């Protein structure tokens, strides 16, 4: 049984909090609860929003009062260990070329690595999508290897281009839209993470992502093909992981 707290976020949302740190085990519990509640299609639940260590449940209190919802959540949490979290595995092309990786040299200097080593270490792990937030389709992917986990820039930039890949402390983020940004930019992804026309996000919470370095030339080709809508990146596979 997981330890959890139900916290009020007003009268139409509550928070199921499993802990207060970024942790894969907590994340898996959050995502499993989200998938479990979503699958039940409980009348009165408007939507669930998974984050690193908690799940927000938006609800209509005149259909499903707070206490009744809390009881349904408790039932789901009792079943968590027997359920698997479902997601997709992605190989996401990223160009670390200097024309896009405006902070790569800075990152190398701060970490006492060569730019090449930064790229190797950043593209080495399989990242877990903890959550989406901040902008439509923006995934928080972790964890960045400890030696690369840098804090914010002293002066944030007022604008970075869509597709920019950043190190945001222990998370990697690809910003789907042009946005102000205070994090180190180390590359750019040619694949749109948010499809405006369809209103869909490429990545979902619980997905697994590996960054595949591509050349500036390959980047251009991929951007063109994505813009012409002939390229639809497909997941490499599905996976189902047990809740720890």
């Amino acid at each position: 049984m997981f330890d959890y707290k139900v916290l009020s976020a007003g009268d139409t949302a509550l928070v199921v909090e499993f802990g207060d740190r970024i942790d894969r085990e907590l994340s898996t519990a959050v995502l499993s609860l989200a998938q479990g509640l979503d699958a039940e299609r409980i009348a009165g639940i408007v939507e669930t929003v998974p984050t690193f260590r908690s799940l927000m449940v938006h609800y209509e209190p005149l259909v499903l009062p707070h206490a009744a919802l809390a009881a349904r959540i408790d039932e789901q949490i009792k079943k968590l260990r027997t359920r698997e979290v479902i997601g997709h595995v992605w190989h996401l092309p990223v160009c670390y070329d200097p024309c896009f990786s405006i902070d790569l040299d800075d990152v190398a200097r701060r970490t006492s690595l060569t730019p090449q080593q930064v790229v190797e270490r950043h593209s080495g792990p399989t990242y877990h999508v903890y959550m989406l937030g901040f902008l439509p389709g923006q995934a928080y992917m972790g964890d960045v290897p400890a030696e690369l986990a840098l804090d914010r820039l002293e002066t944030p930039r007022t604008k970075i281009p869509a597709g920019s890949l950043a190190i945001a402390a222990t998370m990697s983020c690809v910003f789907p839209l042009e946005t102000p940004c205070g994090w180190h930019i180390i590359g750019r992804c040619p694949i749109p993470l948010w499809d405006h026309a369809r209103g869909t996000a490429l990545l979902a919470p619980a997905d697994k992502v590996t960054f595949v370095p591509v050349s500036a030339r390959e980047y251009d080709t991929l951007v063109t093909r994505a813009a012409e809508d002939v390229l639809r990146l497909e997941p490499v596979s599905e996976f189902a992981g047990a809740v720890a």
Partner: protein
Amino acid sequence: MTPALRIISPGLSTTVQDLGRPGFQRLGVAVGGALDPVAFRAANMLAGNSGNTGVLEAVYIGPSFAVEADDARIAFAGADATIEILDDANATSGETIAPMRSVRLRRGQVVRIGSLKNGTTLCIAVEGGFDIAPVLGSVSTDSRGQMGGWQGRALIAGDVLPLHRSTVLERDEYRIDGLDLTAPRLFRAVLGPQRDYFSEEQIEHFFSAEYTVSAGSNRMGMRLDGRPIRHSRGFNIVSDAIATGSIQVPGNGQPIVLLADHQTTGGYPKIATVISADLPALGRLPIGAKVSFAPVTVEEAAGERRKLFAAVDEIAGKLVRIAPPSAAVASRLLECNLISGVYDAAA
């Protein structure tokens, strides 16, 4: 020719809004929607529209626009404003009306709205609505997400917003009497979710303090100025989800109440959440307004939500037909003018 409204001047910031796009926050998509959903409903009722038809929401300063349709019925609800109806774009003056009514306009007529008073927003509904494709089920403008509404942005001069109807239903105009859309000074809030980041003493301070709505407030959040609230456990939390009405307390201790366009997630402790029944009134608070908060339970808040829904249902009963000047009255007026130059209202 496609029936449309042509924007002559956008005002301060005018956007297309409906009741927002809930259901996609897990993808990072903000809910958005009208800041004052009660005014939104009132405007649509006056225009004869169904509940969730997109309107123009003006903030602080209204737009000017021209009618490019044979006829258009337009309704206004929200803050006080002086609404001028001009016969064409070159006219210097025209008839003046107040919000909370519908009006029938013909091709070429221009609506000019000045500064809003006693509130922040004015909803401008058009009979039949705008012919704008919904994104994720909503025509609300998401400026941060650069989607929805009119090209994902606030309106600019020269925008031509297509309408569904080129003419209007033959019917009288209506006004709404007795719907109070002024903002109270006291808002009710449920403690949490991060109440444990604050001592009992600081929570008491929060509920006894008076705050001023500061400049820098926008559709994302209302910044408050007042006595700072101190955190007892630091002011950084692991980012979690945000509900509309969340009152977050950043490092400087000055609370920010998150409004319709808030980000889906954030990393400041949230001391309390304004109850859903008080959110429409929250959207009416202008910069400089004084505001305080009172604690209520989740159960009390649900009861208030029920009352708000009932109050919205009652708006229909407050619709009053505006009597048209009949032919007889018109000729009588003419006669009086011809005879004495003075119209005696008691006659």
